[in-house]
Each structure stands twice: as structure tokens, then as C-alpha cells.
């Protein structure tokens, strides 16, 4: 591939592993710095629920052994790393004995589906609006109308979500209030897919409305600063059609820094999904994250934190590897 050497790809991939290792280590250390004993906490929660548990002291002892909490720290650490490599994140505390990975596997497709579609739509609309706003030749009437589409950016997301639900679900009854799907059977059938899109429209709409303003403002600024570049003047002198100058000379250059931001926001999908999924009761990881926090489900929280690290580093890795394709000036070839 252009601009990439095998050596660079390998080095970059090692960097990626290093980042994840560091992240995983931090996740390992932080809970252990906190006072208290997770097993004791879990048992006491069970006591709270059921009133009384026989031989609770022995139980704690046995469980500590089972989870290896009596082993030396480095053994625990190595075991933890090995588990992480196999995506074995232990059992959910609140839904014991369900493994954390099963919980995540249930939520992840919903989150990735909703958020990546919404983020990419927002990226496309936002950049188009910003490009038109920053382009000198955009018709006046369009320049006057477009800023209206950005006014939603200033409304806090939870409020916009509630307003949308109120209008389109409660008032007009066009869309469902919540959930990811209703009466269809999950699977690759048309009915289910339509159902999912139907349920996803309102939350996706809310995300796009609130986030495209950020893209638009960034893009507008880039377009304005590119407007006085010599190569744009030359393109005009060449008598090229305005459309070609707009897309291939102005936007093509102005959008480059936006791609880095896109990678980061795609990587941040999991963390960013909490509010959306909470408001729309959407069955994704964000909703699970919220519930895990409410239930003090440490293993799930840990699993999701690990997921966040994975997602962000993967997104950045991907953008680094494809960047030479979108900007020919970036090459990793040895000079």
C-alpha cells in the first residue's frame, strides 16, 4: 500500500499492543488501590438480599481461593493478562454466574450499529454544511438557512432526546419510545431489520442533530483558511467548474484533519453511548454500563473500560494506517 512499509506496520502494531497492555494494567491496578475486599462486598450484598448466609466466613475464604485473590500479586497480574488476551473478563457480579463477555457480546452490536451509523451520518452532514458555510461561492440564501440546522447543537443532548421522544413518539406516534426492537425475532430477516431501523431512527436522529454542529464548525474554519490558498486561486484561473474546485481542491484538503477527529469519535463510541442508550432504553453497552454502575458490578465496569481502550486504540491504529491514502504527504517510507 502506498506510503506504508512492512516495518512501519509492524512497529505501529506493537505500539497498539503496548497501548492496550498499559490500559489493561491500569484497569488492574486501580480497583486494587481502593480499600475493601470484593468478595466480602459480594457476600455482604447476598446477605443483604437473602437475609442470612451460613458459614459466610468460609464462603469468603473459598471464593477468595477460587478467584485466586490469595495468590501473590504478580501471579494475579499474569493470570489477569492471560484472561484478557482470551477476552475472559470473569463473571458479572450482578448477574452471576453470567460471564462478563456474554453481557458485552449482547450489547455491543447494538451500540456499534447505532453509534457508528449516527457518527458517520453526523460526520457527512456536518462536514457538508460546514463546507458550504465556509465556501465563498455558496448561494446567499443557502448560507442563511444552513446555520439553523446547527442550532440544535446548543441544546443539551438529554433535553433534545426527551423533546424528540415527546414530539415524535408521544405526540405524533411516528416512532417507538424505547428499546432496540419489539415484536420481531432477531436474525437476518427483513422484518427484524426494518424493526431495528424503525427503533434506531429517533436516537440516531438525536445524535446527528446534536453532534453535527461540531463537525460543521471545524469544517467551516478549515474551508475559510484554505480559501486564500494559492492553489485555489490557480484552480479558478484555470477556469475549472466551480463544483470541481469545491470538491477536489477545497473540501478534499479541508477535510483531512477531520478524519483524525472521526477516528477518535468512532473510538469513543462506547463511552459516548451511555446517555443515548439510557434515554432511549436502548439495549447496548452504554445502557449496560449505566446499570453496572448502579449495581456496583465491578467486573462489568472493568470489562467495558477494557472495551473502551480497545476501541480507541483500534480506531487510531486504523486511521494511522489509512492516512497515507487520504493525504499523500504523509508517508512512512524511509527517506
Amino acid at each position, binding site marked *: 500500500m502506498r506510503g506504508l512499509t512492512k516495518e512501519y506496520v509492524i512497529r505501529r502494531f506493537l505500539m497498539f499492543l503496548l497501548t492496550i497492555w498499559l490500559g489493561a494494567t491500569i484497569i488492574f491496578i486501580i480497583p486494587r488501590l481502593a480499600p475493601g475486599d470484593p468478595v466480602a462486598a459480594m457476600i455482604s450484598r447476598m446477605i443483604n438480599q437473602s437475609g442470612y448466609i451460613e458459614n459466610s466466613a468460609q464462603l469468603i475464604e473459598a471464593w477468595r481461593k477460587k478467584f485466586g485473590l490469595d495468590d501473590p500479586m504478580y501471579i494475579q497480574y499474569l493470570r489477569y493478562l492471560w484472561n484478557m488476551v482470551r477476552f475472559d473478563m470473569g463473571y458479572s457480579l450482578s448477574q452471576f454466574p453470567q460471564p462478563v463477555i456474554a453481557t458485552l457480546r449482547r450489547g455491543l452490536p447494538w451500540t456499534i450499529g447505532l453509534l457508528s451509523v449516527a457518527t458517520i451520518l453526523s460526520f457527512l452532514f456536518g462536514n457538508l454544511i460546514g463546507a458550504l458555510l465556509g465556501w465563498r461561492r455558496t448561494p446567499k440564501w443557502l448560507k442563511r438557512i444552513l446555520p439553523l440546522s446547527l442550532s440544535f447543537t446548543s441544546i443539551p443532548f438529554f433535553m433534545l432526546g426527551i423533546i424528540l421522544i415527546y414530539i415524535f413518539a408521544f405526540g405524533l406516534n411516528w416512532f417507538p419510545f424505547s428499546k432496540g426492537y419489539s415484536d420481531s425475532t432477531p436474525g437476518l430477516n427483513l422484518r427484524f431489520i426494518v424493526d431495528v431501523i424503525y427503533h434506531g431512527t429517533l436516537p440516531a436522529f438525536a445524535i446527528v442533530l446534536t453532534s453535527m454542529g461540531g463537525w460543521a464548525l471545524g469544517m467551516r474554519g478549515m474551508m475559510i483558511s484554505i480559501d486564500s490558498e*494559492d492553489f485555489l486561486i490557480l484552480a479558478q484561473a484555470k477556469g475549472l467548474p466551480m463544483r470541481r474546485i469545491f470538491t477536489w481542491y477545497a473540501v478534499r484538503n479541508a477535510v483531512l484533519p477531520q478524519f483524525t477527529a472521526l477516528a477518535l469519535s468512532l473510538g469513543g463510541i462506547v463511552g459516548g453511548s451511555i446517555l443515548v442508550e439510557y434515554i432511549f432504553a436502548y439495549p447496548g453497552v452504554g445502557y449496560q454500563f449505566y446499570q453496572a454502575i448502579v449495581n456496583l458490578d465491578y467486573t462489568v465496569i472493568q470489562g467495558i473500560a477494557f472495551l473502551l481502550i480497545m476501541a480507541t486504540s483500534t480506531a487510531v491504529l486504523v486511521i494511522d494506517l489509512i492516512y497515507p491514502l487520504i493525504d*499523500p504527504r504523509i508517508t512512512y517510507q524511509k527517506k
Partner: protein
Amino acid sequence: MIPQPTSSVSGAYRAGREIVLDVRNLRIHYETPRGDVIAVNGISFQVYKGEIVGLVGESGCGKTTAAMGILQLVPSPGRILSGEILINGRNMLGLTEAELRERRWRELSLIPQGAMNSLNPVMRVRDQIGDAILTHEGAIPKDKLKARILELFSLVGLPPRVYDLYPHELSGGMKQRVCIAMAIVLNPPVIIADEPTSALDVVVQRVVAQTLLDVKERLGVSMIMIGHDMGLQAQMVDRVIVMYAGNIVEVTPVMPAFHNPLHPYTQLLIASIPSIKERKPLKITTGLTHDLRNPPPGCSFQLRCPHVMDICKRVPPAMIEREPDHWVACYLYGKEEQQG
């Protein structure tokens, strides 16, 4: 085409010389909140077929603005207030957007200042040159296009491998040659070159200048060459236009410009050419150029002129032909004629 006589002041039609570009009374202001900057104050000049005209004058005198005006690409808040720009007798001002776009580059092309940032960083050289061809001549087969671009390359001394490269992979001199190749791709009658060599080191500068001369000889194209470097101008141009504060003060064939400059400003300009043979004190007149927002009445050079007279402060001098083909706007020459 039939050459036409012209009413403009700076150079009358001469038998046997075909006027390719005729700029008449071009006026360009930058409209700022604190008044209009009169960057080009109603200038008129002609460019004949196959000649290179040098446009010189100190920084800020309006050379680039005039060039951009001729191209109708004056950046805002600049505006062309009046004038005519005739190329082969047809006015370029007042065309519709579509007509203008069609005639651009075919009839008037540009070699931009420095050329360092004049190429689109994300497009290959071949696509940027191809762009101009495809836009103006419609689709042509790929191999024909390539052959044509490679032919251009050999004309301007570029190796064929440049065809597939991106601008950042080229040296400054190569970029400049790409710009030259691009400017001649449609064989226009007039090319404007805005300080085409100013960002290059002296050696490359001379090589690129030679390339320009070769191209001009081969194609018989006319050029306006903007520049500070009087030495380079002396070697390249046929005639010199001297600008001061938005006005043309002298138009002359190149030799008299150096050996017999008439206007006090031209004299100053020639006197300040550095010499490597002798060390002479840098010649600087007192005073700066007046604020272009409110020029004094009369001659624009009056504040710095060593020979300033009473009349200079009242009425702007008109262009007179002091010697054949040598025009000057100054009361030192034929005061009486001018007042008439």
C-alpha cells in the same frame, strides 16, 4: 486578426505590431472599513504579440493586484471598479460566469508567485495538468493525454517521472516548471507570471528564467512578467512598465529603462540596484509612499520626488511619448504640452 488603433495613453499602436492584450483604464480598490485603498488607479497599457513586458515597482505598488485584476481574481475586499481588458480585441470584463470560465486559461494563463503553494497537495501532477485540458477540450483518450503532458514536460525540462508524482515530492524549481507547463498547456496568447522565480535560489532562478524564454520563443506567446529583480528583468523583458502607488509612471523599451530612465522614480529604482563590483550607499529617498486611501492631488510621487514643482501638487501628469516608444508621466518633460 486586424490590429486596432487604441485611444489609451500609454503606447499607441505601431504598424506591424499586433496588440494581444489591451488594458484600458483599469481601476481596482480594496474596500476597507476605513476607506477605499486605491491599489490600481486607472492604468492602461498594451502587450504586443510575442513580447515580454516587465511590470516593476516597489512592494505594495499594486503589481499583483493589477495582475489579479486582469485575471478577474482580485481577492475580496478588492473590486474592479472600471476598465476594459481586451484580449485579441474582445473584452474579458462583463462576461457571464460561464463565458469567463470558458475563456480562462485558453486565452490568459497564470504562472503564480513562488509556485510553492500553487499546486493542490492531494492531487498528482498529471491530474492537475490534465484538469485544465479536460475542462477546456472535453474527454480525450488517456494515452493521448499522457503523451501530450509528457511533451510539455520535455518542453520545460521536466523528467517524465514527474508525471506520477505529488507536489510535495518535487523541488521548488520543479514545481515552478510544472506551473510553467500548466500555463502553456492550452497555448494561450497571454501568460501572466507573478514573480515566477522569486522563491528560488539564484542558479535555479536563472535556469527557470531561461526555460521561460525558450517557451516564449517556441510558442510565440506574450507575457507580463512581474518582478523586483531588475537584473533578471534586464535579461528577459522587451519592455518595462514602472508602477508607483497604483499608477503607471513610465513605459519604456528595456534598454532605455536602464540607461536613460526618465521618471524620477525609475531613476531611483535603477540607482538602487545592488552591484557586486562596487559598494555604493543604498539610495533611499525621504518619506514613504502616501496612504493609498487618500492620495494627494496631483502626481503620486510628489512626496518623495527630488524635483517636485508647484504643478505636481495640483494636477496629475499625463503620459507623454518623450522618445519613440518611451512614455513617461512627469512634468519634467514637456510641462507646456501637458497643461494644454
